[in-house]
């Protein structure tokens, strides 16, 4: 059974994707899954070749057939998403008809069920696409949520399950998951039932605040959690405080990564940090990976450099 490691952060922009890309280069035998489906960036560095693309339908959407609409406005009164408006193209006609605002529509179908004229179609919507790809480090599953679409959690679930199936098929031991910021629907979908969560934070008040909520979320779902402070030298006191508090809360420290402008250079060169840089923060990332890999192999047993 392949293991799942999920990298999340609470706060955005702390370095999740740069870290996951480097892990992909360091971990042999892993499937990479980009679960940040509404702002995916991992493909920019891993440069996947898409082998298979599949449309994603996360739900249904209502559409009013103008010719059948009697203008009774029943739908307007029962729609709680305020998604039904007067059809602007019919504004100058004598009869009033209605249309569904596809962005406001949540796909509950209540309007279609109760429309006395049976004028509302309720059919599966295409909300995005997901891909099975090959990268220079192995297979990758990723996705693109359509513009202004819903159901990111369901798309995350598909990406995860496809990545896991691929790992089983190719006899790979690890699924490496890049999560999204926040603690809501897509993050919950990316961590439930995973083997290990790594929270990447930064030594700022925001980073510390958001780490607390992300750690609470991982705890809520009973997932073992490690913490990595990225750009630690931006504020060494805050970095130390975050690590101490994390230990007090039973979280394992995976290590620190120093601030290094080479991270952006690596991005511009479409390379992972560990490919692009010989030392500096690349060394830090290697040692964080060693700690994470150790915990995956021997859960519950602290690694040699835990408190270094």
């Amino acid at each position, binding site marked *: 059974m392949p293991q799942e490691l999920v990298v999340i*952060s*609470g*706060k*955005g*922009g*702390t370095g999740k*994707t740069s870290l996951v890309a480097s892990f992909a280069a360091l971990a042999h035998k892993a499937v990479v899954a980009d679960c940040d489906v*509404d*702002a995916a*960036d991992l493909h*920019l560095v891993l440069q996947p070749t898409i082998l298979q693309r599949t449309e994603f339908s996360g*739900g*249904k959407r209502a559409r009013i057939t103008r010719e059948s609409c009697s203008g009774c406005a029943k739908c307007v009164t*029962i729609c*709680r*998403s305020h998604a039904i408006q007067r059809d602007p193209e019919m504004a100058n006609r004598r009869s009033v008809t209605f249309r569904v605002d596809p*962005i406001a529509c*949540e*796909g*509950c*179908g*209540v309007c279609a*069920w*109760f429309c006395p004229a049976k004028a509302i179609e309720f059919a599966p919507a295409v909300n995005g696409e997901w891909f099975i790809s090959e990268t220079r480090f192995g297979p990758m599953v990723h996705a693109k*949520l359509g*513009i*202004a*679409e*819903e159901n*990111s*959690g369901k798309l995350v679930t598909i990406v995860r399950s496809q990545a896991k199936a691929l790992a089983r098929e190719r006899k790979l031991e690890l699924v490496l998951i890049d999560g*999204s*910021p*926040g*603690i*809501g*629907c*897509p*993050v*919950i979908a990316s961590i439930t039932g995973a083997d290990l969560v790594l929270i990447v934070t930064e*030594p*700022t*008040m*925001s980073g510390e*605040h*958001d780490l607390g*909520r*992300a750690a*609470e*979320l991982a705890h*809520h*779902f009973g997932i073992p959690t490690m913490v990595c402070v990225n750009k630690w030298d*931006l*504020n060494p006191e*805050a970095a130390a405080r975050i690590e101490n508090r994390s230990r007090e809360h039973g979280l394992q420290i995976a290590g620190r990564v120093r601030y290094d*402008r080479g991270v*952006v250079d690596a*991005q*511009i060169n*479409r390379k992972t940090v560990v490919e692009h840089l010989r030392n500096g923060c690349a060394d830090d990332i290697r040692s964080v990976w060693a700690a994470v890999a150790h915990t995956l192999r021997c859960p519950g047993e602290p690694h040699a450099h835990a408190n270094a």
Partner: protein
Amino acid sequence: MRIAVASGKGGTGKTTIAANLAKVASQDGRRVVYVDCDVEEPNGHLFLKPHIEERRAVGRPVPSVDLGKCIHCGKCGEICQFSAIISIRDKVLVYPELCHGCGGCLLVCPEGAISEVSREIGILETGTAGSIEFVHGLLNVGEVMSPPLIREVKAAAPDGDLVIVDSPPGTSCPVIESVREVDFVVMVTEPTPFGLNDLTLAVEMVRALQLPCGIVVNRAGLGDRDVYEYCADERLPILGEIPDDRRIAEAYSRGELACQAVDGYDAVFVKLLADIVLQEPAPRS
């Protein structure tokens, strides 16, 4: 004027821009309202340090079934698109965390056996930071859906001369809920490949919503020039640039506002604010 500060990519500086703009705008006598819609990870309060005057729980309606009246016809489960209510033999199972609160089960039940009860999803806090009126929400940890709380946060915001909505990162439902009905979207990006990729997604989103937007390049000087080329090609106005200055990052790490803590930045944000206000669309006639 109501503006939203958004970005596709997280950590590009939304809160830095939003909080500094609120501060400089409040200094020249404007009535400023700061609305933090990032209910998953709100950070505005760390910088504005508001005095919270009111705190209340926010709930949303979920079904409650009176089994005495239920005839187990299964219609509730049939209409529910979210698998939040299922009728099996002599039981009706409700999964409140999956419920979208559409009210379909209530309407479809032929026996009137379903009523609604409120289930708490988060906390709403309002207060003041100097002369700035402040509103934010905190989603309960483990809660899946943030848009209903975001809606409440926006509804609780008083009117002002300048309403600044600090939006969550990304391009999906929580962001859409945050930026809807504003006059203008300030999109914060950084000049890196990740910044550009997520900016293009966010711009497509605001265009789908038919909202005007302009760009602020944060950490200017870092990375490459591709963001600038993209903005020129897409005719997106660059409203301002905030340089990649370690002093800003350090002030930020301590929870301080650059316009107060770092020399020269008061003027930078006053200028940015002036350029944003110029973007106010003419009232529709």
